[in-house]
């Protein structure tokens, strides 16, 4: 770590140009925080997009306030954007922020209290509050500086408002572009690309709006040029592949289009809704529609009705919505109607943490419905996979005539990162509907004795007329009145999962195939886990990891893999009891959701380390936790 000077003269006046220190970094994490509505997110988005376009690895995370319209200048109101920039690919949000730019000291305090800032972080903060006419505000500033001084931060006051007022009347609308200018100077970003991005951001506004924003940007750039004595150089590395940069919800929306699906039925719910925002904008030109239903239940029902009558449809929701849909999910599974359901997980239970990430819907997704309701559950691990998983989900739903749940989460949904541009293939859209004439006497479910698979019959096909029923039924969709039918039909529905599992290969191990400890994860934690494994291995520990995409059916071959390690630990973003907590014993300990499943399916004594911090896991935290759990007698 290159050292920063301990003390800094507050730079003043445009005339005193300083000779900057250039810090070369493999990666750096920067964030912009403000009160809600001051545009910090927009500033961060542009910074992130331009960094990606320049060839840097990028992972961005939204900092979302707990309230919709929080009062100004309170720590709970901190809203913003965090960007981790690297020379190589960046797979997760990292550990702590190295440079923060704050519009007031209270939001900065919030970040400090969350442990979000590195001990040696550089903090640029609007300084007008120090001299504010309101004595309480001045006092708050002093108290905040006092609290911040407990760490080795380097604080640089910035007269943002004073500077902005030279150009605009209302600095609340414009500070963000000034901030962008400062960051562009400090990080040496390509100004032409930024101006292009500003033009794109304000494409629906007038030319004057664009010009004003560019002027503010340039002023911020010039101010940093003259007043900030540090430059951070994270060298870009041009990728050989064409790349796209988007968030996970956008990837799901575009993946759905690529898969050829053309009906999305939904009800607004955070953090899933933005999938439908993008689709609502573009879907119709692809021949598709977004149906905003009257409630979550109806959204599921409409998707099921549409799927039953033709090409598979999908619905997008989050935890509380999943809960409401469960009766319909059972209906679709019982009647073997294909359906794709995307659950963008948030903190739960109940309303929980609507904007924050969690992986605690796994059990709800697996069990979904009362009664025995076998269905497929898959989880993309990266934003790129959010795109591609939709094609597979549709195909599996139609092949296996069942519900396919796709578990994403708020980290994937709102994080943004560049990935290899997908090369859409017409085969992805293939309609596997067999429209050839239905032979007379064909039954509604001609279950194959081996696989349980059967041909779908669609309304409109002569000879196929049958009444689908959610009551237990036989091959002919006749209500089960005799004993044995329910056993047989349950077996046919269940068999399909065994068949799918037989097609899967054992998952690859990241790192050595044997060792002291194997970390197992699923979903959005892959990047953080693998980065932690890299660090642990660099420290000489024999740690590997394994990431699961198929959770129902469970991926095959796990037990032999587990047996090559002394210890297996899941790392998850959900709640589990800690051993040693009052009343908690090994017997009654409630474990992480994946850990529970793995114990059941492998009979291996799988341990877990899980947290519900309302934010993505930090690789550093995983490193610490794993070190703590290394088996006795292991290396080091």
């Amino acid at each position, binding site marked *: 770590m290159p050292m920063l000077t301990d003390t800094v003269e507050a730079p003043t006046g445009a005339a005193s140009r300083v000779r900057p220190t250039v810090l070369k970094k493999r990666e750096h994490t920067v964030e912009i925080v403000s009160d809600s509505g001051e545009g910090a997110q927009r500033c961060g988005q542009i910074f992130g997009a331009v960094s990606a376009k320049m060839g840097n690895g990028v992972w961005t995370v939204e900092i979302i306030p707990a309230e919709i319209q929080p009062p100004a200048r309170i720590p709970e109101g901190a809203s913003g954007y965090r960007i981790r920039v690297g020379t190589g690919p960046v797979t997760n949000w990292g550990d702590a922020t190295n440079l923060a730019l704050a519009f007031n000291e209270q939001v900065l305090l919030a970040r400090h209290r969350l442990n979000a800032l590195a001990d040696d972080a550089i903090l640029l903060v609007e300084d007008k509050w120090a001299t504010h006419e309101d004595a309480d505000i001045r006092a708050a500033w002093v108290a905040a500086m006092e609290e911040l001084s407990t760490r080795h931060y380097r604080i640089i006051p910035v007269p943002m408002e004073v500077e902005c007022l030279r150009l605009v009347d209302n600095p609340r609308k414009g500070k963000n572009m000034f901030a962008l200018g400062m960051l562009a100077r400090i990080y040496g970003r390509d100004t032409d690309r930024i101006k292009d991005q500003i033009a794109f951001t304000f494409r629906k506004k007038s030319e004057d709006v664009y010009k004003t924003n560019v002027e503010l940007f340039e002023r911020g750039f010039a101010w940093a040029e003259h007043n900030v004595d540090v430059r951070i150089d994270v060298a870009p590395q041009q990728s050989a592949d064409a790349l796209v940069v988007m968030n996970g919800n956008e990837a799901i929306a575009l993946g759905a289009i690529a898969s050829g699906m053309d009906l999305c039925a939904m009800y607004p719910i955070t953090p899933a809704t933005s999938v439908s925002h993008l689709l609502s904008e573009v879907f119709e030109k692809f021949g598709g529609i977004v149906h905003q239903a009257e409630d979550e239940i109806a959204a599921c029902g409409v998707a099921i009705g549409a799927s039953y009558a033709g090409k598979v449809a999908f619905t997008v929701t989050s935890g509380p919505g999943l809960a409401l849909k469960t009766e319909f999910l059972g209906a679709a599974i019982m009647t073997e109607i294909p359906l794709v359901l995307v659950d963008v997980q948030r903190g739960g239970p109940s309303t929980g943490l609507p904007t924050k990430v969690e992986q605690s819907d796994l059990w709800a997704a697996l069990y979904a419905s009362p009664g025995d309701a076998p269905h497929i559950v898959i989880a993309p691990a990266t934003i790129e996979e959010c795109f*591609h998983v939709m094609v597979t989900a549709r195909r599996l739903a139609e092949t296996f005539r069942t519900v396919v749940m796709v578990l994403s989460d708020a980290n994937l949904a709102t994080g943004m990162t560049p990935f290899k541009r997908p090369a859409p293939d017409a085969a992805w859209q293939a309609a596997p509907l067999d429209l050839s004439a239905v032979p007379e006497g064909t039954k509604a479910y001609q279950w194959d004795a081996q696989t349980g698979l059967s041909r779908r019959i669609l309304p409109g096909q002569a000879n196929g007329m049958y009444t689908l029923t959610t009551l237990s039924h036989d091959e002919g969709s006749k209500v089960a009145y005799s004993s044995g039918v329910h056993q047989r039909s349950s077996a046919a529905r269940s068999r399909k999962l065994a068949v799918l599992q037989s097609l899967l290969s054992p998952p690859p191990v990241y790192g050595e195939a044997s060792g002291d400890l194997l970390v197992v994860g699923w979903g959005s934690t892959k990047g953080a886990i693998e980065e932690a494994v890299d660090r642990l291995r660099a420290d000489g520990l024999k740690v590997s990891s394994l990431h699961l995409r198929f959770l129902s059916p469970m991926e095959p071959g796990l037990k032999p893999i587990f047996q090559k390690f002394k210890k297996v630990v899941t790392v998850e973003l959900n709640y589990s009891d800690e051993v040693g907590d009052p009343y908690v014993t090994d017997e009654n300990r409630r474990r992480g959701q994946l850990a529970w499943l793995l114990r059941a399916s492998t009979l291996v004594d799988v341990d877990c380390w899980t947290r519900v911090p309302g934010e993505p896991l930090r690789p550093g935290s995983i490193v610490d936790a794993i070190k703590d759990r290394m088996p006795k007698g292991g290396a080091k």
Partner: protein
Amino acid sequence: MQSDPRVQQALAALDRPIAEFRALLEGALRQAELFLAEQQADEPARVARAAATLGQFGAARIDATRFAALQPGASRADKTSLDALRRALDVLHQMHARGDGLFVAEVVEGAKLGAVVESALSFIGWAFGAIIVTDLVRGGRYVPAEHESLLDPLGFGGWSRSERRAAPPVIVRVAGHAVRATDLASYADGHVKLVLIVDGACAPAPLARLITPGTFVLQTTDGAGLDRVARFDGPAFAAVLPPGAATFVHDPVLGREPWQRLTVTHIPEAPKKAIGAMSTWQMLEELKQLADLARTPFVVPAAGGAGAPAMGASDAADRIASWLLAQSGLGGTT
């Protein structure tokens, strides 16, 4: 021909029904090609196809060979059937290759409007036959003696009810003197939609004779209302006429009575000279027919009648009717 801005305007207004027909063609083509490929395919090709449909996420984790084995295999077709399938595919490819041209026709000098429409529809009818052949072959039900004729163009008279409902719109460019509504009447069925783009002197209300309770009829001089043709759930006729022609729209969903359905926005004077085969009397008769249909009743029907407008002859159509009657020397009856 397709570069005519009015043709472009009509194609744009009729985008949805055209796209629906195109999708139907594509669906049939895709299924037939897949079936043919299956006949010739070796194992690796089958597996590669299965893997492709799984997408990247699935292909990376799912064994494509075993996945392919789960897909219901295509039945084996004999050589005669496969030959028929290939011919059917040729027809469908030909249609596909025509692009928008499939939906646009032109009445050249000396040709008859009716014949041009019939030929355009016969060509489209060929697609239906070809589609059915692909399905018969796939289902192993193709019998040459019985089904061979399906691979010939099919005049509209032979179309089934469903085919008439699946008919795409046809846009016809025609000279004014060649417009004869009676040539078109027999196509008022299913979802057939015919749009005439008319050049040169033309009778002022050539489509008035096509108004029947369930047929959408539109005359326009600027293309306004063509989008309603696309939306109407039934047969429709429209004409984009030179300026000065009568303009009206007859929309069956608007009510039970002719005056509820018909909105006349302009009625010109009857031409003083014959146009093409149309005499001045015939053209006046068409204008009168239009005015008659548009005229609101004077007396509110007995209890239970639909909400007829209040009494009075202030309605524009009534005034037009009075004027027309005066023109023809038959005034005094109102």
